[in-house]
């Protein structure tokens, strides 16, 4: 199952990250994190940025490490899977940078 796990690693990380940021968003709104300032922003945004940033770093690591030792079609599919995860995380979670938070 090693190969399957590698091919699925990128999208799996996206699913985890998406859930984590979505959950942080709901929890933060509920606990009033928007009112607590951290550095140049509020705790709510900070928490989501940190989660997202760490996730993107991990995604980058997957793109680099996962295809090792594979050739041909096996390699191709792993590379594609890793990039799918990375692009999905960048694109679907970029609203944490900009949008207003709790309605």
């Amino acid at each position, binding site marked *: 199952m090693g190969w399957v796990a590698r091919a699925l690693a990128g*999208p799996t990380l996206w699913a985890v990250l998406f859930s984590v*940021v979505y959950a942080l968003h709901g929890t933060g709104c509920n606990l009033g994190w928007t009112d607590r300032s951290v550095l140049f922003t509020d705790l709510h945004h900070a928490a989501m940025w940190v989660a997202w940033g760490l996730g993107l770093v991990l995604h980058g690591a997957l793109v680099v490490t996962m295809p090792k030792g594979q050739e041909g*079609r096996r390699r191709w599919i792993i590379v594609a899977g890793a990039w799918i*995860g990375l692009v*999905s995380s960048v694109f679907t979670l970029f*609203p944490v940078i900009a949008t207003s938070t709790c309605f």
Partner: protein
Amino acid sequence: MTDATHSGTASGVLPDGTAIDRADIATNPPQRALHLHRELDRVWADLPGWRGFFTSVNHGTIGLRFMATSFVFFAIGGVLAMLIRAQLATREGAFLDTDLYNQIFTMHGTIMMFLFAIPMLEGLGLWLLPKILGARDMAFPRLSALGYFCYLFGGSVIVLSLLFGVAPDDGWFMYTPLSDRTHSPGVNADVWLLGVTFVEISAMAAAVEITVTILRCRAAHMPLTRMPLMGWYLLGTSVMMLVGFPPLILGSILLEVQRAFDWPFFDVARGGDPLLWQHLFWLFGHPEVYIIFLPAAGALSTIIPVLSRTTILGYGAIVAAIIGLVFLSFGLWVHHMFTVGIPHMALAFFSAASALVAVPTAVQIFAWIGTMWDGKVQMRLPMLYVMGFFATFVMGGLTGVMLAMVPFNWQAHDTAFVTAHLHYVLIGGFVFPMLAAVTYWMPLICGRWRIRGLGEAAFWLILIGFHGTFFLMHLTGLLGMPRRIDVYPGNPEWEWLNLTSSVFGMIQSAGFALFAFDIIMQWLFGRRSWRNPWKAPTLDWAMPVPSPSYNFASLPGPRQPDADAILPLARGEGLLPGAPRGLRETLVVEPASGRPQHVAVLATNTALPVLTSAAIGSFFGAMLLGFYWLAPLGILATIIVAWRWGAIMGSTEDRAPAQVAPDLHLPLHFQVRNTLALTGAVALLVGDATLYASLLFGVGFLTVVAPGWPAPPSGLEMPVLVAGLAAVAAMAVGSVAARLAEANRARPSGHLWTLVGTGMAVLALVMLGVVAMGLDDPTRHARDALRGVVVGFAVAHGVIAGLLALRSHLDHRQGRVGANRYGAIPGWRLFQDFWLATSAISLAVVLAQEVL
């Protein structure tokens, strides 16, 4: 596919004791094909007459039954659609009253989703997979039959409710509070919740079975990266079903418990939230679109290259696209809820994800177009339906991207525009490809060739009728006509559009009727088809037409990778020729590489599945009729019948290995640990874990979002928490006992550990009983209700784990385990660990709620 041998030539023994062998397998000596056929048919055929109907477990029979039954439900759903169109044809629509109209549109949606689309794809998967992957049957034949009878019984109840005027009438999405006791006092909503859940048992059964079959029942040395694309598509589908259905099952259970026992999950006044239903429903409902689309796309990826006389373009890209789709489609459910008042940030997440999912879809579309461009397209009947797919689905995808944009969505929400979009996606993305699939595989199903002309006429009627009906509904929707209304006296401007839609709708139904007629004519009067009429390369055509009960006289190996192997396979030159032991045998391989591991002996004809589904049905029936005190008897009956399933597995003696090829001997599954059943248990637990995760999502969601929190102070006393801790401790001891029982299975002392395990399960259940007694009144607040569900979840799993421990114990007493035989112990161990893990998490959650 001819270089399937490239991956590894190692030989030896895997860590768990199963044998692997080198890739280059010598061929068996040829035999007389007729002799092989007689021997195999005796073992694999259904019983004659009506007994065959109740006892068949053969994937071919069950698959065809699924498809035939789903077409009957499709016809019923179609008639309901025509009633809707007749009602809407004019402004006043005096044809149906509002009450009946509500039942009819609800039933149309419910039937098409749950009784047509999903069973149709299950049927196609069951019938086709073993053929296309080179196996004799699915991994769990009895499970197929169980799924079929659950579907037949549940579906019949739902449809019959229409005759008695108690059909569901709250829309196929069953939104709360519309569907709660206060607003839907009758039994109508219960019919939906119980009937659909019953049918869903068959979907989960099919999902487990399809997953395991694809991973482990392929031809020898067919690696995952080279299996036919249909395998990838159905693997994606079945995994999505394993993860997509549990949220809906959980939602249905919660809503039914609220209706039956007044536990307030969706009641705002007591800490619930109707939006929880919407989240659980669409957590299922959006992936459902792709669950339906993927098998259809698989059929397209199979048919297009064959009828374009070329090979598919971009195999790797398509596999990657499937992986992307499977994951991404779980991140979009909120786009069905853009107008319910969701924070801006969440709207943005889900809008972005919805737009992004168009990319993997487009990858596939371009691969198909490129394939046709490369080859020489033959416009035979299946290809016409493929063209119908392109014309329809692409447009549905474009309106989908429009609807993914929040501002447009707010304008078009709940109008006929959405109805039009969803029909373009579902008819374009599922019905057209399925019609292509049926016409394509029909010669293999019935052994006959179709009658010229009829099919083409049916196609054009369907295509013109469809676009005439639904293209106009985009316009009707943009003019502001809402969905689900039965009259529109104040809006004359919608009338001519609706009237025209209705007329084309009738043309469309005439087309479907003609299609059915064409199929029946082919079955009855077509001339005999020759072998492999489309000159396809895949293994499903490496067998006589119509396909025999056992598919292959000998199983394809590295030397027989494609349809050209038809004669050698029939002569027994492949693997595992004939049925020398008089057993239903098929080859089991290692999931990724396809190296042969062992030979599985599959179940033969039995009435156990129909009895089991009747037992499960008695539980649902008692709930539906409101005899709640009778329902536990249904559960008891189910347990008693389910016990029998295990009784005919396993073996009391060591069996000699089977000769698969001249120099390849593999053990029968009685002697290996990593059996199909164990893989199936893992797949089932994936679904189970999703159910549990959905429950945790519910706890988190209500805590964070629902008004009416924090909950009133809980009356949990110290003894209750201690009992909870004691229960978890007993489960942990049980997990240890399961390990020791497996390690000592060959020693006489081993049965002590199975006894300890059984005792610990009983102890843990007693402790859970103490916890249940000490909980707050579950009707008081949603938090208390959720705690009740959490304990119920643990109790249900405790009963199963306890029964598996007891089964392991009896296996030991009866000599069904030994140095090389494992009995039920590995399954028990898995379940015990799952029970322990979920219970420990539950306890931690409750403690956190108390402390925070």
